[in-house]
């Protein structure tokens, strides 16, 4: 009798605990989303929860302003028909430019390391050559070396080569920093492929390169996708590398830098922060909700094995 009541009680307690944890993890983001659609006056005067009852006074003004870098863009726009919205977003002083920069930085910084890492991972997984084990151990060791170790020498090198403040410099840096994990992860994935596959292929006279791009790559598309998502989000969300190698120049700054400078220049544009932060979260959230299994695999792949 008492056991049954007790069990039901502890079941409800279980649900309450889980649901309150979920609320603690979602309410902060939800509040920011709600705030991003409120007018400047409302954001400063009251909490976002007050907007959840009528009148539902929501506006997209913040998004227009933060994208173009102008205040009250909608009103100005009405008087000046010659400018295109898209043009203002891309070339203006706003976050639109930063969004584009983030894309320009992230895409090559994802593709280059994956190409390089998959060759290296294949060699480390299936080819025999002297020093292979030593190389593997070095890659494992480099996995957790703090980035901070490399900043000063590389920055000096970049100053000498005029790579500081350029996209190329950031691409190369992200490539190098992403490589240890990319090689390690892909090597584990490749190693898990059945051995017979390679033996029969080489018996048929296929060269290493043919085996690689005819067999290994097609079979590993899901693994490579996991890594791609992981690396893309890593670069997209990065602040430190951009801060160090791009310096203070605004026309190359990615979203993270743009928003952090909005945050430190308090006052004036404070009400644009929620909209700005949401613009930076959009792509990660889309990727997360559509490709979540791959994303989780990319994050777990390295640590879970064994």
């Amino acid at each position, binding site marked *: 009798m008492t056991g049954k009541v007790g069990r039901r009680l502890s079941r409800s307690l279980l649900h309450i605990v889980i649901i309150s944890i*979920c609320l603690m993890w979602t309410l902060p983001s939800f509040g920011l989303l709600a705030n991003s659609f409120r007018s400047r006056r409302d954001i400063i005067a009251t909490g976002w929860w007050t907007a959840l009852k009528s009148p539902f006074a929501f506006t997209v003004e913040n998004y227009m302003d933060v994208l173009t870098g102008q205040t009250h863009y909608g009103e100005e726009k009405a008087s000046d028909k010659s400018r295109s919205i898209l043009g203002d977003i891309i070339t203006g002083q706003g976050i639109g430019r930063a969004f584009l920069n983030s894309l320009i930085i992230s895409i090559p910084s994802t593709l280059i390391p994956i190409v390089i890492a998959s060759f290296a991972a294949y060699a480390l997984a299936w080819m025999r050559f002297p020093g292979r084990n030593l190389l593997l151990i*070095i890659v494992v060791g480099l*996995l*957790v070396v703090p980035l901070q170790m490399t900043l*000063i020498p590389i920055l000096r090198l970049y100053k000498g080569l005029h790579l500081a403040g350029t996209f190329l410099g950031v691409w*190369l840096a992200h490539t190098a920093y992403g490589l240890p994990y990319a090689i390690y992860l892909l090597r584990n994935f490749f190693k898990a492929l059945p051995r017979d596959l390679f033996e029969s292929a080489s018996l048929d006279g296929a060269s290493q390169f043919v085996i690689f791009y005819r067999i290994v790559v097609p079979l590993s598309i899901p693994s490579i996708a996991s890594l791609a998502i992981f690396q893309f989000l890593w670069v997209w969300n990065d602040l430190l590398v951009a801060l160090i190698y791009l310096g203070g120049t605004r026309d190359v700054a990615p979203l993270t830098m743009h928003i952090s400078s909005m*945050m430190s220049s308090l006052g004036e544009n404070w009400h644009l922060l929620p909209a700005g932060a949401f613009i930076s979260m959009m792509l990660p959230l889309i990727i997360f909700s559509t490709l*979540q299994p791959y994303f989780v695999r990319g994050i777990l792949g390295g640590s879970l094995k064994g």
Partner: protein
Amino acid sequence: MGSALLFLTVYLIYPILNTAYLSFLGRSSKEFTGLGNYWYVFTNADMLGALKNNLLWLVLFTSITVSLGVAIAVLTDRVRYEAAAKALIFLPMAISFVAASVIWRFMFEFRPAGMDQIGLMNALLSNLLGFKPVAWLVNTRVNNFALIGVGIWVWTGFCTVILSAGLKGIPVEILEAARIDGASEWRIFWRIILPMMRTTILVVATTMVIIVLKVFDIVYVMTNGNLGTEVIANRMYKEMFNYHHFGRASAIAIILLLAVIPVIVFNMRRFRAQEAVQ
């Protein structure tokens, strides 16, 4: 393979050696100063504050993310909406620390008592519980905890997902057998689940230690290390760009490296053991 080697050498191996060398030189790397930079790192008041805060982060962040992760993994294992709950908690991992900082900046927003609170934390505190509002990021008694809280909010999902996978690896038969023998759920958790998840917990905890040693973004964006919230990674950034003292900045980097060397050795050993099994 060749290009991978080139990248690793130029961007990782050479800089490690170079930074080690620079840490014994002066401000502009022209004169040899011996252990001067290290002396500074361990005696300067700001640096000591940063080291102390990193220790606070290390203890609180690691223990809370890991134990919350275990708790959430075990609890959600018992409900049908497990996947959805874990996805919600994991979500902050997908966004940047900068975005997370904006989110929490609004959560922590402070208005003096008597005014309308626009930050949720203070609204709950003063309207619901009747306490005085707290200036979360300014008050030096709470601001470190506030920043650590943001870090926990971001990383708990990561711990949960990995620990949950570890939990699923425990054979159901063992748990069933214990239940049939009349063991309470509480006892099963302490005597079976925890011991069997030991390796996973260890891996997650070391990952958190690495994360916490390098913690930078949250502090840089939210307080820039002011008001007693400094951490070593942010301090290094300041030595580089505000004070242009490359010797000291290098010494800080080396300290970070020394702190992770045990983890590097642990990883290498674990990798060797794994390879031996296969």
